[in-house]
């Protein structure tokens, strides 16, 4: 009797304890990203700048809507790759991650905080772009479209979080920014973030379906009816596959490095 009472007592307490760690970890990670101006200003600033350049010159056209969506996808990729890839690789190099690993912090809380904060940035970028599209873009977006895009941005953060994690475990901190740009810029271009894929050279069009960014863009563009004809379920499956493979690869590399250390 007393044993069950104790067991019942302990469980909510430890759930509270774990819950508190997750909440604090996410909160301070988000604050950290926000206050790291090199990150927050560039990740939010670039889509704004590009939209002001190219969105406003295509006022009232379908392309103003297209860019709102495609730049949101770019926001997902940059927030996750720079936020997680560079964030973790820097914290590893500086010894901060090791101090945290020596503490009782659950590893999942650390990873979770990085993913949630990066996804939050992706959503902020989406909202900023929606506001820009409705003002300088001269178009309109329905609440339902915004909700669907928010859900896509959140779910789409997962495969790129996994990619960021893989970069973080593979690439040393000082070369991480270069490597991330090398992955991110060509991938964005080839996946139709700058202009529809059908305008790209033929050989690029053939490469595009191999890129996770292409599938994310197609799912998001489908919301405003600008996707290429095709099956949306296949795009979701591709993203899920990428998520699993990239997380798996990061996990294998990390555990192998840990065993060698």
């Amino acid at each position, binding site marked *: 009797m007393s044993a069950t009472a104790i067991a019942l007592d302990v469980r909510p307490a430890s759930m509270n304890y774990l819950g508190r760690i997750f909440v*604090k970890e996410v909160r*301070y990670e988000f*604050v950290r990203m926000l206050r790291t101006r090199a990150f927050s200003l560039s990740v939010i600033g670039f889509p704004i700048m590009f939209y002001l350049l190219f969105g406003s010159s295509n006022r009232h056209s379908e392309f103003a809507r297209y860019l709102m969506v495609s730049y949101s996808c770019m926001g997902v990729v940059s927030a996750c790759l720079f936020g997680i890839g560079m964030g973790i690789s820097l914290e590893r*190099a500086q*010894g901060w991650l090791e*101090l945290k690993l*020596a*503490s*009782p912090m659950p590893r999942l809380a650390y990873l979770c905080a990085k993913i949630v904060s990066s996804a939050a940035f992706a959503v902020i970028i989406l909202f900023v772009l929606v506001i820009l599209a409705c003002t300088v873009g001269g178009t309109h977006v329905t609440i339902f479209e915004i909700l669907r895009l928010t859900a896509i941005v959140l779910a789409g953060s997962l495969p790129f979080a996994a990619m960021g994690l893989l970069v973080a475990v593979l690439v040393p901190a000082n070369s991480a920014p270069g490597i991330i740009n090398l992955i991110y810029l060509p991938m964005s271009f080839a996946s139709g973030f700058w202009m529809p894929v059908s305008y790209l050279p033929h050989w690029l069009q053939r490469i595009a379906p191999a890129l996770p960014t292409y599938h994310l863009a197609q799912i998001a563009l489908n919301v405003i009816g600008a996707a290429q004809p095709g099956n949306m379920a296949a795009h979701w499956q591709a993203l899920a596959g990428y998520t699993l493979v990239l997380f798996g690869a990061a996990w294998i590399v990390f555990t192998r490095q840990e*065993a060698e250390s």
Partner: protein
Amino acid sequence: MATSAALSEVTKCPLVNQPLVNRAIATLHSVTKRYENVPALDNFSFQLRAGEVVALLGPNGAGKTTAVRLLLGLIAPTAGSVRVMGRDPRDSETRTRIGAMLQVARVPEVLRVCELIDLFRSYYPQPMDSREVTRIARLEGLEDRMFAKLSGGQKQRTLFGLAICGNPDLIILDEPTTGMDIESRRALWDEVRELAAAGKTVLLTTHYLEEADTLATRVVVINHGKTVCEGTPSEIRGSISGRRIRCITQLDPAFLFTLPTVTDVKRDREALVVTAEAAEDVVREMLLRDRTLSGLEISSPALEDAFVALTSQA
């Protein structure tokens, strides 16, 4: 063999019925750790008992940090066993009772001191009151300062504060005063003494002889992954012979070698550095013979010199 060990344990410690007295809090049992076949620790055994302040003393690359990382469960031994509070150090329950200060180059610089403390307190089920943390780590008035805006000493004190956030029984400090000025170093020593007075077990690594001397109840000197010697600070000092006399003098080094107990004479820029056990006698003689002698300093040997002495004896 096992029974004789048990017997000697009994004879050494009459209070066997009180297991809390001299209870081993952390043990490395014949641990070998190799990095690509280079041993960082070589069949190294070490025990930390409740309430002790132990200094692990050694030059860079001696294996101090490897020992610390093993005790924190950050790495696994190649051979041998590691036990902390009777458990695997990777056990999350064990970790809630340990606080660590590692050689961290940078912590997130845009977080405030109070935020870092708040974050680390959340990791522990029974954390120390945050005001208590700032008091012991002497961070009062700095709570709202961003980490980037702190001085070197204040940064180290913040890391020290993070180590005590969980009100741990065992505190591991890896070279806590490296890069600190004398004043902050003294302040940190006081903080460690306060922890020891509160009954905490403290393990610190250092390459400063003075630091081990002033803080530790027991010193373990290691080099090349092995214990060189072990004992109370005065026992260790006794085994390291000679003090250093540094001065600007016109006396001939060859002559100085003939003075009693002089073991070494070196030129260091414009000055001479004489190592001698009976430093007072040597200095008296030198002052008598050279009225122009200036810039006199007498110090205990640097650890590197101590190691030469210790390892050449073995």
